């Protein structure tokens, strides 16, 4: 399998994971959605130097991953995609804010470095929470849940189409690069002069595919204006999970041991 093909499969792999049958997968999507939002809001609301206070949140991804039997490396590789952006945001602090924040042994850590690590940890926690949600909940259940929460139809639609579009786009890109390579001698990369039409074609084809997939869904009665699955009620287990996560998140946020 070529590197690119592997990447396409990885992207779809999240989809495949979401079909698992573990206790976490069986939880009500609304419970998982609220937990994810709680984690994201709590982590983001911490100050720029609160690295230590964020550490307890790491329990969430680790516990979830082990119960839901998710492959750690796959999720981690996904988190790394967001890394460059955070490094970019944090690196200027390292340069400009050099006053000493704390000393560990003989090593001085500046406020800049501390804030960089805090940003990275926040990023890790938020992206991980989102990935855990996607990897344990089928996508259609998520969108219907968002609709049920009265998120306007147009936002959910865009969310949904983006998700499907990225997947088919990668698949199209894969088959097009393969076809290109087979006819271009042994060249590894696409030549610059072909790049324009290549990318254009890829976007158009991806759009075409996404539209056909959407048509097929519509043919079987799918429409975001009509909300299916909403009949499913939250059970005691769902409430227990939700309150456990919610209360611990809020406690970690509020209690300051220092």
């Amino acid at each position, binding site marked *: 399998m070529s590197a690119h093909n592997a990447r396409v499969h990885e992207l779809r792999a999240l989809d495949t994971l979401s079909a698992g049958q573990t206790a976490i997968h069986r939880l009500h999507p609304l419970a998982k959605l609220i937990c994810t939002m709680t984690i994201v809001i709590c982590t983001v609301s911490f100050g720029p130097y609160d690295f230590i206070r964020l550490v307890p949140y790491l329990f969430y991804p680790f516990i979830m991953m082990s119960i839901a039997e998710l492959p750690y490396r796959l999720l981690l590789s996904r988190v790394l995609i967001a890394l460059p952006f955070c490094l970019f945001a944090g690196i200027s602090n390292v340069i400009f804010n050099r006053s000493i924040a704390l000393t560990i042994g003989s090593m001085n850590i500046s406020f800049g470095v501390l804030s960089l690590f805090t940003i990275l940890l926040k990023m890790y926690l938020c992206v991980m929470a989102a990935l855990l949600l996607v990897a344990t909940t089928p996508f259609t259940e998520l969108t219907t849940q968002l609709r049920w929460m009265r998120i306007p139809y147009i936002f959910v639609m865009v969310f949904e189409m983006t998700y499907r579009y990225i997947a088919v786009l990668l698949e199209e890109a894969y088959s097009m690069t393969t076809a290109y390579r087979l006819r271009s001698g042994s060249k590894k990369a696409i030549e610059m002069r072909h790049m324009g039409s290549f990318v254009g074609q890829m976007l158009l084809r991806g759009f075409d595919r996404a539209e*056909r997939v959407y048509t097929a869904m519509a043919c079987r*009665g799918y*429409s975001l204006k009509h909300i299916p699955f909403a009949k499913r009620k939250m059970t005691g287990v769902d409430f227990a999970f939700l309150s456990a996560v919610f209360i611990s998140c809020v406690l970690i946020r509020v209690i300051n041991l220092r």
Partner: protein
Amino acid sequence: MLIVNDLTVVYQDGTCAVDNVRFSISTNENVALIGANGAGKTSLLLALVGVLEEKSGEILIGDTIVENNNLRDIRTKIGMVFQNPDDQLFMPRIYDDIAFGLRNYDFDEPDVEQQVNYTMSRLGIEHLAQRSPLKLSGGEKRLAAIATVLVMSPDLLLFDEPTAHLDPRARRNLIATLTELPQSKLIATHDLSFAEELCSRVLIMHEGKLLADGDISLLNDATILDTAGL
């Protein structure tokens, strides 16, 4: 069962893909739709399920006219199997893909399970239930795509090139499976012998127009096939 009156499809760029077509299909009838590439077969099928907005004319299913405001009902009566099964399978597991339509129509989960299992055993694909559509062969995908439509128990089934990408054995199995389905079928295909085995009647299209409508033996008429560019 199905009545089509003066159906015309003109795409936004001006291409007239279907030109004043009229025909009807009665209950339990299997009809083949034949025509060269670009003759307008896919466009015709899409118009019947109400997907194309660029259409004019009248389509009646049972005694309901297909309109934008009753598409939800129409789509329980008429099911379409797409040319490319990849377009039709988008859930993580085949089981969820087959259940997708029923869930959209608010069936209870026990009902859904029963219907899905029944449909899968009818097509002999029970073993695929927990598999991901990405990892199936072309023939398996085709059967799964048919199951997604069949599970809704529609009165009329539309097929767009069902034998594409199938090996001879999968093709024979498909013929056997389709023969057993009691529903009316309209099957767009380039596979003339497939059409002859399955259908009693044929519609021949050429450049958007309905060139001929009659007994399947029309497929032995060299002049008609020649005019249709086949």
